[in-house]
């Protein structure tokens, strides 16, 4: 960093020569290839200046970044590669009154944060998809849906679930606010390459087993920090068989095993999903893009630093019992005893989790009653998720002990499609609320909260202490499992409702 520009350039040239000499021969992973394609400069200590192709901005982690730019008199280098979408704070109740006027947001702090985004985006020349636009939604739903997120791209957002876009084969990861500022100002990040891990899921998924169950199972296998320092490529026939929506669900939770990012190689499923999306390449450029995307697949013989192989037959509908996403058991199982863990600190953590969750060792998960059901979040709020939930709920009613059940579509477009398919009627007739898009009760920054001491079967991604509201008890499940819980009033093996 103190080196003269000449030395910097020389180093960059050396690196380029070295790369061109080695890349032709050394088999590379999907991650290696995307990384190599985005190196602006490589320092001698291995740190690289990496170009960022797509930057998603939301209202929570950006105000301080824009403020710093203003204070330093700095501009946004590529406003055209940046897309701003409010999602975390927005209420999921009606946003416009009958006359089309905006209904004021009750919480003054939420209103202030949303107003800051609406001020900052135009001031810095950034395109904003606002709360009145039908395209508005959770950034991680909007990016792929608009074709803003593309395979082989580097994508960042001040949100850890940016890993989601890896389902398209993009290198996508969450960043902090200082990095948001760095990307806004320079369109780059200074990074060291992570290690490569392959998580291979082979075989056929059983009936009632969804992408969410796959990733919850992986969380259980790897643990909450098993992926730290790695970028994980999910491979194998079970992953290939997933729809694009399902792949986004899997990659979304890469961060829940500590991985910097998740990746799934782009293939025909990916191309079919992207074709015709508003910002996806068109015509001749589309053909060139597809050829490039195909070339990104991991080369035969490429080395992963770690390989984990999972038999798809071992995966059943899953549920969390504790306060870390690694606390996963099959729905057919029981709450584990703290003594069953070998690590003493995990024993302690498990005891604390059980106290918080109000569960006792040996209790059958299927006996646990829930008072709340949340179907939504960047993990599970796409059309496929809503269809899966509606299929279980159709012809049934919400159980009486379920006090609050809401479905929050991931975007206005998902909402519109669901309404065209009549899914909204299925939910409403069952006594389940049909809401406007946003992050909602996944992290309870808006008014959607789970009361203290109550349980929620939730399709979100984190069961942390207080995540869905102070004292709230979260059980992470798939949309079909959440729907099953809504109609039975307790955690339920969805296969019992669908097999008949």
């Amino acid at each position, binding site marked *: 960093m103190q080196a003269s520009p000449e030395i910097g*350039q020389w180093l960059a040239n050396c690196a380029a020569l070295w790369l061109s000499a080695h890349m032709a021969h050394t088999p590379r992973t999907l991650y290696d290839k995307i990384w190599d394609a985005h190196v602006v400069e490589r320092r001698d*200590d291995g740190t690289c200046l990496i170009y960022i192709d797509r930057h998603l901005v939301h209202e*929570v982690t950006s105000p301080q970044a824009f403020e710093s730019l203003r204070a330093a008199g*700095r501009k946004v280098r590529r406003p055209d590669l940046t*897309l701003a979408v409010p999602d975390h704070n927005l209420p999921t109740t009606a946003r416009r009154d009958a006359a089309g006027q905006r209904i004021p947001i009750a919480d003054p702090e939420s209103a*202030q944060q949303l107003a800051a985004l609406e001020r900052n985006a135009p001031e810095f020349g950034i395109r904003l998809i606002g709360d009145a636009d039908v395209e508005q939604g959770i950034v991680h739903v909007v990016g792929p849906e608009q074709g803003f997120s*593309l395979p082989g791209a580097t994508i960042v957002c001040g949100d850890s679930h940016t890993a989601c876009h890896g389902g398209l084969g993009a290198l996508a990861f969450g960043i*902090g606010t200082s990095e948001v500022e760095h990307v806004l100002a320079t369109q780059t990040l200074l990074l060291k390459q992570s290690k490569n891990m392959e998580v291979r899921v082979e075989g056929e998924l059983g009936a009632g087993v969804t992408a969410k169950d796959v990733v919850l199972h992986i969380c259980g296998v790897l643990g909450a*920090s098993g992926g730290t320092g790695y970028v994980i490529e999910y491979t194998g026939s079970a992953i290939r068989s997933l729809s694009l929506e399902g792949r986004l669900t899997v990659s979304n939770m890469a961060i829940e095993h500590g991985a910097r990012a998740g990746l799934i190689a782009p293939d025909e499923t990916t191309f079919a999903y992207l074709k015709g999306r508003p910002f996806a390449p068109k015509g001749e450029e589309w053909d060139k893009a597809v050829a490039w995307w195909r070339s990104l697949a991991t080369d035969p013989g490429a080395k992963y630093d770690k390989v984990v192989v999972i038999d798809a037959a071992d995966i059943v509908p899953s549920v969390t019992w504790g306060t870390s996403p690694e606390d996963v058991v099959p729905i057919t199982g029981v709450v584990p005893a703290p003594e069953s863990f070998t690590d003493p*600190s995990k024993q302690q953590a498990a005891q604390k989790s059980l106290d918080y969750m109000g569960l006792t060792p040996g209790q059958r998960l299927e006996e646990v009653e829930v008072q709340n059901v949340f179907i939504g979040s960047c993990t599970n709020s796409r059309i496929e998720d809503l269809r899966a939930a509606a299929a279980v709920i159709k012809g049934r009613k919400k159980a009486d002990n379920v006090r609050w059940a809401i479905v929050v579509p991931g975007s206005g477009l998902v909402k519109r499609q669901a309404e065209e398919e009549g899914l909204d009627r299925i939910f409403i007739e069952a006594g389940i609320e049909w809401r406007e898009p946003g992050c909602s009760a996944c992290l309870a920054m808006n008014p959607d909260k789970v009361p203290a001491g109550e349980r929620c079967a939730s399709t979100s991604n984190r069961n942390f202490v207080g995540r869905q509201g102070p004292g709230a008890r979260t059980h992470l499940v798939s949309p079909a499992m959440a729907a099953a819980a809504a109609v039975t009033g307790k955690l339920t093996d969805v296969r019992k409702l669908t097999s008949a």
Partner: protein
Amino acid sequence: MEPVKEVAGRAIPFGRKNVDTDVIIPAHWLKTITRDGLGRGAFEALRQDPDNLFDSPEFKGSPILIAGDNFGCGSSREHAAWALLDLGITAVIAPSFSDIFSGNAFKNGILTVVLPQAAIDRLMEVAQTDPVTIDLESQTVTTPFQDRFSFEIDPFRKHCLLNGLDEVGLTLARGDAISDYENKSAGETPWLAKGVAA
């Protein structure tokens, strides 16, 4: 950013594993549009307990936090780093950190020191009664009892911390290299270079 050379003083023997950023600063504190004042919300749930370490006369305002494995996991919120700073914590010692948190900490001048569990156990013991010193230049953690633990740190991060360098300013100076990359990319992958202007 202020240069960081040494962090010395009492260390909070927290020791907990998998401390997520929702624990460090719950989501309802994220509605701020400034970086200041988040210390009040730091470890909010834990501080409901009147006997918590963070508010005890002995550890209140201590500059060092000792934690367990995977500190700062979960959400990318930089508010976690700002909350620690506002609480007076400028260094965290743990067996491992989440990638995003350690980046956020670094960018705010908070030292994240990785030491093996055995060293953590010893420091937890010392911290009950005595201070701990982290010296960045020599990359060591020492105690008044001749304990001396060496730690690794990325040389670039060390250089930036010791000299208080602004990373955005450093990268802006590489503007020509970034432009060169953009020109090359516009030829090779034009669909990526094409934007979605406002």
